[in-house]
């Protein structure tokens, strides 16, 4: 790479890995507590690893089959990019590796956090947050390192003149296929993890709390370990894989669109390709700095804890605004301040979505309180209020993304809508801006389950009230960050998917040229070279207009896929939870000593049931997510695929916000009541709120987050299957 600023990216990736390793070793050196704490932690770790083993086994089979198919299409039929089979496998492998490291760290850190909480809140926060940072830094480190590696390798091995603009378009669209593996692995991690965690949670609650009347995190509950494992599976491995894919996808889409936007100016083109990588690199360095700023004093209250966490995230975000300007200025990219404004737009959009999520799901604000008030009327009014609040909560994020997209487009295009390439590049780089400080924002997500498990460990180990008080404070903080993290993940997925859809057309260009179609004959009879056709000419060539019934049909299909996918995942949780309910009931029935506390339950069996249930149940939703763009492409061609992706994105985004926020609001409405409102614990309102919370569980932790993957995966499947669409489409 001839652009010096490019090297910020590999250096930052290495720094991320070094600090991740350092934080891991620091955590490992901490005291793991007494034997009981270690035993409980061991159960959780064994369960988590058993889950990952099972998932990786299935992944191995699926990846082998899909890679074989890609290899046949690429090397046998010659209609696919020859790099695809390899980048696909790498994308999946490194996403899984990040999840593995994250889970290993999180499951080890929770026990040590509990042990630290015996003496110090500040120390417990440090251990849990820096352990969460391991996941954050591993995701961004491995992600960026891979992208750098593939850019260098593909650039080296792609024939042609380095100053030929079309060559860099080919390089960037080739590397874009890396996202396919990451996306498919994210689907497994998110859908499987989401089903697992809620099957265990709902199963544990329904029999343990509701039927047997035993409290949460009670070691007599056979599903308690599976429940703790589920926290890690969902919020560490699942969230990590989701954001790994968003992170890589946004950078790759920005690079591809940058290459396409400046195809006529090779020097500027390279700068546009390098900019997202460099901004991501600087973001990593600032994330590390932010991690060191997260600390608190002994005896800190909830507000101070939140302030400590926010300080790290806010400082990183503020500094990236300045640093991005520096990077772009150093690069000397055209319209420096316009591109910079697009980056800032992405950051601000992320913050607005986070704040909106907090507003709609926090008991400090009116929406969640209105659900709590509605609970006085019983379960039906609680459910109605939650659904209403969830639907309304889609307004700010959707408006923020719309405004962010428009502003980013205008800033990057210099307020000239005819500069569509530059404008779309701005949209993509806005997503990069939003995700630039992922190292620390993901740290705050992964911190949640560590603190949650630490609290569970303190309960099960029978530690004193002062320890539980500290772990409860950390757990409560984790709940707040988890809610905002989900909003952030959805927002970044929407922007990334938008950028991927825009990249789709560039990939079509490459595949058309590869298929020997060098000239496009437009509807008005004019001819244009495929290599030089503008985006609008491509749209005209494929008749991508709302007057084309194919586009409308596919729009509806896209919307339907989002709902069908959500419905299947919700039902999957119900079925998997039923298996868990049956098992917990069986254990209580067969061995009364368990409830007497005189015999240990069979924790492993519950872990195995949830694992197998999750793997089985995720197959159908996964098949739909992958098959939809392929089938629509074969039936309706490019116009159909664009319609499907737009329909899926628009519906999936709003639906994901609705599901996540409704679930979060129900959860916190219950907590608000438990804090002594509307009758408090044991009241009619409390019972109603428990029902609302149970309904919201699969919404917020399974279907909502899984939709992030759906909207990105459909786009990336469409991108990698353009060769098939272009070659075999019926229309």
């Amino acid at each position: 790479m001839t652009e010096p600023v490019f090297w910020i990216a590999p250096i930052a990736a290495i720094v991320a890995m070094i600090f991740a390793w350092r934080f891991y070793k620091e955590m490992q050196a901490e005291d793991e507590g007494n034997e009981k704490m270690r035993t409980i932690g061991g159960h959780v770790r064994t369960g988590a690893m058993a889950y990952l083993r099972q998932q990786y086994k299935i992944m191995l089979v699926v990846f082998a089959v899909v890679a074989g198919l890609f290899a046949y299409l690429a090397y046998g039929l010659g209609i696919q990019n020859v790099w695809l089979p390899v980048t696909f496998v790498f994308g999946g492998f490194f996403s899984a590796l990040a999840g593995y490291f994250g889970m290993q760290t999180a499951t080890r850190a929770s026990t040590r956090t509990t042990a630290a909480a015996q003496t110090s809140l500040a120390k417990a926060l440090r251990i849990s947050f820096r352990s969460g940072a391991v996941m954050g830094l591993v995701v961004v480190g491995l992600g960026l390192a891979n992208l750098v590696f593939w850019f260098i390798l593909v650039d080296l091995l792609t024939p042609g003149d380095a100053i030929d603009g079309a060559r860099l378009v080919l390089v960037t669209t080739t590397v874009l296929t890396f996202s396919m593996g990451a996306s498919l692995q994210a689907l497994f991690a998110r859908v499987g993890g989401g089903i697992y965690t809620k099957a265990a949670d709902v199963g544990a609650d329904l029999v343990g709390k509701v039927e047997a009347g035993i409290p949460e995190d009670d070691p007599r509950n056979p599903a308690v370990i599976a429940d703790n494992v589920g926290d890690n599976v969902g919020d560490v491995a699942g969230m990590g894989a989701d954001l790994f894919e968003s992170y890589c996808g946004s950078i790759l889409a920005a690079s591809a669109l940058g290459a396409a936007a400046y195809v006529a100016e090779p020097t500027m083109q390279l700068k546009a390709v390098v900019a997202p990588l460099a901004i991501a690199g600087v973001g990593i360095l600032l994330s590390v700095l932010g991690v060191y700023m997260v600390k608190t004093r002994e005896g800190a209250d909830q507000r101070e804890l939140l302030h400590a966490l926010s300080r790290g995230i806010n400082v990183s975000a503020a500094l990236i605004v300045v640093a991005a300007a520096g990077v772009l200025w150093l690069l000397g990219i055209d319209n420096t301040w316009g591109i910079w404004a697009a980056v800032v737009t992405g950051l601000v959009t992320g913050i607005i979505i986070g704040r909106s999520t907090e507003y709609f799901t926090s008991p400090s604000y009116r929406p969640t309180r209105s659900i709590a008030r509605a609970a006085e009327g019983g379960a039906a009014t609680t459910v109605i209020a939650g659904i209403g609040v969830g639907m309304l909560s889609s307004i700010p994020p959707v408006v923020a993304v719309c405004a962010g997209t428009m502003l980013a487009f205008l800033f990057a295009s210099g307020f000239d809508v005819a500069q569509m390439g530059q404008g779309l590049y701005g949209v993509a780089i806005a997503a990069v801006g939003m995700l630039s400080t992922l190292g620390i924002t993901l740290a705050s997500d992964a911190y949640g389950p560590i603190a949650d498990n630490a609290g569970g460990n303190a309960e099960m180990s029978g530690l004193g009230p002062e320890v539980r008080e500290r772990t409860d404070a950390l757990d409560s903080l984790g709940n707040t960050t988890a809610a905002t993290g989900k909003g952030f993940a959805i927002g970044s997925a929407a922007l990334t998917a938008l950028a991927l859809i825009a990249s789709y057309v560039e990939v079509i260009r490459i595949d058309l040229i590869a298929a020997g179609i060098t000239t496009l004959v437009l509807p008005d009879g004019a001819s244009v070279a495929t290599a030089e056709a503008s985006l609008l000419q491509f749209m005209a060539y494929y008749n991508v207009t709302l007057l084309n019934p194919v586009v409308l049909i596919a729009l509806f299909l896209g919307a339907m896929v989002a709902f069908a996918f959500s419905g299947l995942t919700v039902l999957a949780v119900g079925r998997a939870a039923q298996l868990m309910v049956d098992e917990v009931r069986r254990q209580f029935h067969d061995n009364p000593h368990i409830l007497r506390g005189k015999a240990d339950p069979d924790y492993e069996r519950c872990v195995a049931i949830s694992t197998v249930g999750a793997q089985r149940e995720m197959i159908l939703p996964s098949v739909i997510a992958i098959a939809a763009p392929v089938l629509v492409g074969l039936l309706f061609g490019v116009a159909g695929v664009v319609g499907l992706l737009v329909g899926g994105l628009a519906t999936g985004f709003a639906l994901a916000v609705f599901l996540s926020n409704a679930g979060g609001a129900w959860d916190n409405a219950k907590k608000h009541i438990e804090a002594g409102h509307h009758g408090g614990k044991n009241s009619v309102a409390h019972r109603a709120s428990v029902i609302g919370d149970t309904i919201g569980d699969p919404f917020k932790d399974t279907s909502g987050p899984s939709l992030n993957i759906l909207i990105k995966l459909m786009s990336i499947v469409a991108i990698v299957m353009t060769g098939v669409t272009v070659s075999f489409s019926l229309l």
Partner: protein
Amino acid sequence: MSDYRLYLSLIPEALIASQLEPAAFGAYYSTGRHLHAHDQALFFEVDPSFRGGDFPFHLADERCVTQPSGAPKSSVYLGIYTALARVPVSALGNLYLVTDDGRTLELTRGEYTADSAYSLHLYQEFCPVRPLVASRLEPQSFCRSITDPQHPVNVPRIAFAELKLGELWSDPAHGNADDLPYPAIGHLRDVLLDFEHNTKENKLVMRQVRQGIIYRMVERGFYVGDHKDFAYYPFPSHAELESKHYDWWRSAQVTRFD
């Protein structure tokens, strides 16, 4: 000397002989032998030498013996009707509060002094009837009033708890009732407000409390007595329950669905 213990259950009313220790009996009584049942229980341990009340103690002597398997006999019912009326307060030992999942908290008798801080009170009666009653009488006076033979409506002996009224004791009309889990708060307010307009000592709030007791709402403690004797069992503070009886306290706060 018998090798069994006597327990006077309040929910439901019964005198039971058992070879189990109080905690084990509480767990058994609440959740059953195979833990397939889940229900609260309140019971007193009765002086083992007590032989009054016309109960068939010979049944206990015959049947409350170690099982052929070596297991202790869990229960032999000696009476399921007017049991409290037939056991004098002096024969009652410690009181045991059992949660839905069978965890037991032991309360010992305490020195009773009337607390004049509150002008209005809320009492949940357990035995022999189970209403929720608002009263302007402090607990001992309430007990005397309900068990007064001169009173047209009376019971021979009563066991009850005083429940929290939050701000309603001082301001029934507008006081904050946010953390009061009782059904029909509006009706409770009306009942309390009625005391301002008449001279009645007690007013019925609910004819029968169908759910068990919400332990977190217990104000000072539990009471048992008649027109002569009176005993008070102080309920620990929430801080003490949190620190010394954590498992019981957590279990006591779980909302179980019937």
